[in-house]
């Protein structure tokens, strides 16, 4: 940013208006790309400054005076510090960079200024991808390169004037030409083993499930239909009612919310499989958390993750980028067949002084059914099914005795309410119970052969411990709204969702998701491990960085050769008349009249006419026509050429044998 000091030296050429317009467009695209993570006020302010500058320069070219620029710079700095508390780090840095770029336009009046601004715009465009590297985002950023490249082109002198929109087209060509080399470099540029500096910020808002649950806080999640994970099964796809992906197991209830406590130190509980395990891979979208959802009960931990006490999977690092892992799970099992006393106590603990009516109901059931735990579970499910309970995504707010209010007054809620109240009922009745959150259902993408699970498939259910059976999953939501389990969250919430999530549009979105899946697998998921295995089909295992460097150099050289071949290629432009003459020579040559090296066309054709007296007229006509095309004009007239072409085409040597 040159704000204060002056440059000396030769006068820079002024900036053409077209180039400035393109610069403004480029910065506007950039601002739009960064808008999702910038404070609203900053976006609006920068947008206003940009629009004003564009309008002002159309009226009269000239730098904005310093008395205006300096306060704006100060204001920008204050705004960024005010919003983020600092100027450093990814988000404030990006905000500051975008702001500086807009301010740079205020003083861009020379070609040099414009080049600096556009170079910096490329950098800022790339930084937009650090906030989200989805397919659409990347594509839009690549489109954002077009006005930037066009602005750089427009700085060159002596161009043919074209319409504004046509300015953008050559950039497309350039990028398409560059794409093969770019893809190659992308494949073989050695990846860093560990980050050079402060890894991606962890302050980013976590998305998806959280490690605590209180009735009502899933609402945002259930309305968010971004993909959460994608699952490839190696064998059969499990039926819908068995597609429970466990994330958190929650034991601790304080009367309001359920908390997950990382069971770091407790030994992993035993599981006895009653059926063959299911093998699958999960491609998890970034959650910025460490938990890895797994189908029901996983048998072992994948790489870079650990299996915790309640068979939850905890990754070594928060998942900030799409993460792939392979697992084996059992769907029919006995989880923790013997419950130790500490766990039993924990599974029965309820906060004192909350939900008296619920406790009373549970005590009543206990009296009624005696020692039959299964009968009490059934009683609770019957309650949910038969009483007037409703499944709704916008339930009324609950007061202090939340479960009492829910069970006896409002009776409206979704999975969280049902799971929570069911678990409280069970505990009050003396059955060890806990809440499990995760995802349930998903959309089977037949084309891609994977199960797409969206955030809106988030679900909460209960597990009760029954003697001889271990922890048994009970989904009270299914008792209220069976469609939630069999058809998915969308069907359950029918009529309560925004327009784009219903019907055929949602189907289309589900189909389209395969492209995202390819992008995630092919581009975003291309990590150093896959890079090392890149040339395995060619017998080169485990490429190290040196080898990759060699491949990069060799490949670049190859591309350089290709490019040079293109650059040096000159199309031989043969005069069309000469080409026709050559065709005629071939015909005559087959008839035995070969043109001698020292023979001009006139002499040659006269000789041919003497040799073929029957075709004398024809040959003379050919000769005259050729001579006219070749020598009478600078550029042979098209009608003469057409005539000559027809003559040559129709000419046949008719040998007369004597």
């Amino acid at each position, binding site marked *: 940013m040159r704000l204060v000091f002056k440059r000396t030296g030769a006068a820079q050429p002024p900036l053409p208006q077209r180039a400035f317009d393109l610069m403004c467009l480029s910065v506007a695209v950039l601002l739009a790309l960064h808008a999702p993570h910038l404070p609203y006020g900053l976006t609006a302010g920068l947008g206003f400054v940009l629009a004003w500058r564009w309008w002002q320069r159309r009226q009269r070219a000239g730098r904005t005076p310093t008395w205006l620029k300096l306060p704006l710079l100060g204001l920008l700095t204050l705004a960024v510090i005010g919003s983020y508390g600092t100027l450093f780090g990814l988000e404030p840095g990006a905000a500051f960079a975008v702001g500086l770029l807009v301010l740079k336009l205020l003083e861009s009046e020379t070609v040099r200024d414009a080049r600096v601004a556009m170079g910096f715009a490329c*950098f800022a465009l790339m930084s937009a*991808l650090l906030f989200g590297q989805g397919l659409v985002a990347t594509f839009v950023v690549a489109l954002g*390169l077009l006005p930037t490249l066009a602005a750089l082109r427009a700085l*060159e002198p002596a161009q043919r004037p074209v319409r504004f929109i046509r300015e953008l087209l050559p950039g497309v060509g*350039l990028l398409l030409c560059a794409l093969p080399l770019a893809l190659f470099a992308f494949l073989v540029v050695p990846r860093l083993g560990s980050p*050079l500096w402060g*890894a991606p910020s962890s302050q980013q808002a976590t998305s998806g499930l959280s490690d605590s649950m209180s009735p009502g806080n899933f609402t945002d999640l259930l309305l968010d239909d971004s993909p959460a994970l994608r699952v490839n099964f190696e064998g059969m796809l499990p039926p819908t009612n068995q597609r429970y992906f466990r994330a958190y197991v929650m034991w601790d209830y304080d009367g309001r919310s359920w908390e997950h406590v990382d069971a770091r130190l407790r030994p992993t509980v035993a599981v006895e499989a009653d059926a063959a395990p299911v093998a699958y891979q999960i491609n998890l979208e970034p959650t910025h958390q460490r938990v890895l959802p797994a189908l029901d009960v996983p048998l072992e931990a994948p790489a870079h993750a650990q299996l915790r006490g309640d068979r939850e999977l905890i990754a070594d690092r928060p998942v900030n980028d799409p993460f792939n892992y392979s697992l084996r799970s059992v769907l029919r099992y006995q989880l923790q067949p013997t419950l130790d006393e500490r766990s039993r106590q924990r599974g029965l603990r309820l906060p004192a002084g909350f939900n008296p009516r619920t406790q009373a109901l549970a005590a009543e059931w206990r009296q009624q059914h005696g020692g039959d735990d299964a009968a009490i579970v059934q009683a609770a499910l019957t309650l949910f099914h038969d009483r007037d309970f409703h499944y709704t995504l916008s339930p009324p707010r609950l007061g202090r005795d939340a479960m009492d209010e829910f069970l006896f007054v409002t009776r409206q809620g979704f999975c969280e309410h049902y799971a929570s109240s069911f678990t409280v009922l069970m505990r009050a009745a003396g059955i060890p119970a806990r809440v499990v959150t995760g995802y349930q259902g998903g959309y089977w993408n037949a084309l891609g052969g994977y199960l797409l699970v969206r955030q809106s498939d988030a679900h909460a259910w209960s597990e009760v411990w029954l003697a001889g059976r271990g922890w048994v999953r009970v989904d009270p939501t299914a008792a209220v709204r069976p469609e939630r389990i069999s058809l998915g969250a969308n069907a359950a919430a029918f009529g309560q969702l925004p327009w784009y999530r219903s019907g055929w549009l949602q189907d289309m979105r589900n189909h389209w998701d395969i492209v995202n899946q390819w992008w995630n697998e092919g*581009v*975003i998921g291309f990590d150093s491990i896959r890079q090392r295995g890149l040339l395995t089909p060619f017998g080169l295992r485990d490429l190290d960085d040196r080898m990759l460097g060699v491949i990069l150099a060799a490949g670049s050289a190859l591309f350089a050769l290709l*490019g040079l071949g293109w650059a040096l290629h000159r199309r031989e432009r043969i005069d069309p008349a000469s080409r026709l003459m050559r065709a005629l020579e071939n015909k005559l040559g087959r008839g035995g009249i070969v043109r001698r090296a020292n023979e001009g066309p006139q002499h040659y054709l006269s000789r041919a006419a003497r040799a073929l007296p029957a075709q004398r007229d024809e040959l003379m006509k050919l000769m005259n026509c050729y001579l006219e095309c070749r020598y009478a004009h600078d550029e042979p007239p098209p009608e003469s050429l057409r005539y000559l072409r027809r003559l040559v085409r129709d000419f046949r040597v008719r040998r007369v044998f004597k």
Partner: protein
Amino acid sequence: MPALTRYRQPESLPVELHRRRIYIVPTGFGIGFAVLLAVMLIGALNYSNNAALLLTCLVGAASVASMLVAFRTLDGLRLVGIHAGHVVAGETAELHLEFRTRRARQALRVDLGDEHASFGIDADGQARVRLTMPTEFRGWQPMPRLRLWSTWPLGMFRAWSWLYPQHAILVWPRPEASGPPPRQPADDTQLRRLQRGDDLAALRDYRHGDPQRHIAWKASARHEQLLVKDFEQPAGQHEWRLDWQQLAGLDNETRIARLARWLGEAQALGQPCSLHLPDQQVAAGNGPLHYAQCMDLLAMLP
């Protein structure tokens, strides 16, 4: 650097640029952009952000491709002609360079000393570029080296080539600012007699006001309108004889400057004159061609 000096020898037109004489270096902006790309690359790798890495690779590859485009902007360009206007020593000469190509091109620039011009070539493959060149002395002035260059398309690479055409322009001598008028030849009585107009030159149509005695009656009888006898009429003027030898006692350059001034005055007045130099003569005449011929001779004097 022998490659850069290979074309020090002047070469005859047409001059065609080809790969062995086109050089490419990154511009300052290109170097800065490369640094920026390196920062982007490290950033993308550090955040292990593959989309950003892909974008960085794409921008980098596009920059490299722009180098080839820059080369192709110059490759195959031909300088086929140089046309110079008349110029007097000390003034700037106007040159017209004529370029031919097979493809259309844009954003070409040509430098001649401190003079810059930019031009594009349309699909017809022809372009004329106007340049000016300062002159100092009369006589043949060889063309200096021309630099033809372009930073098309992105301004990151500069492709350039030196042209050293074997071509010189003739600079006319500078007329002196002031001095005596040309001396009249003493024996001009012969010419005066001619002025009387006795020699019959031709017949022409009668114009209102012609004297009656000039009408050619016999000839008019055979035509529809009156014909008049036309006589040579030098109109009171006579030829200036500009002679090198008359200016004895002056040095050569002063003589040339004076002759140049007289020629200029004669040209301005439409006055016929003849030029007599030590070993060359120009017969009497006037008009721009005559003037140019005389000035050329003066310029080429040793």
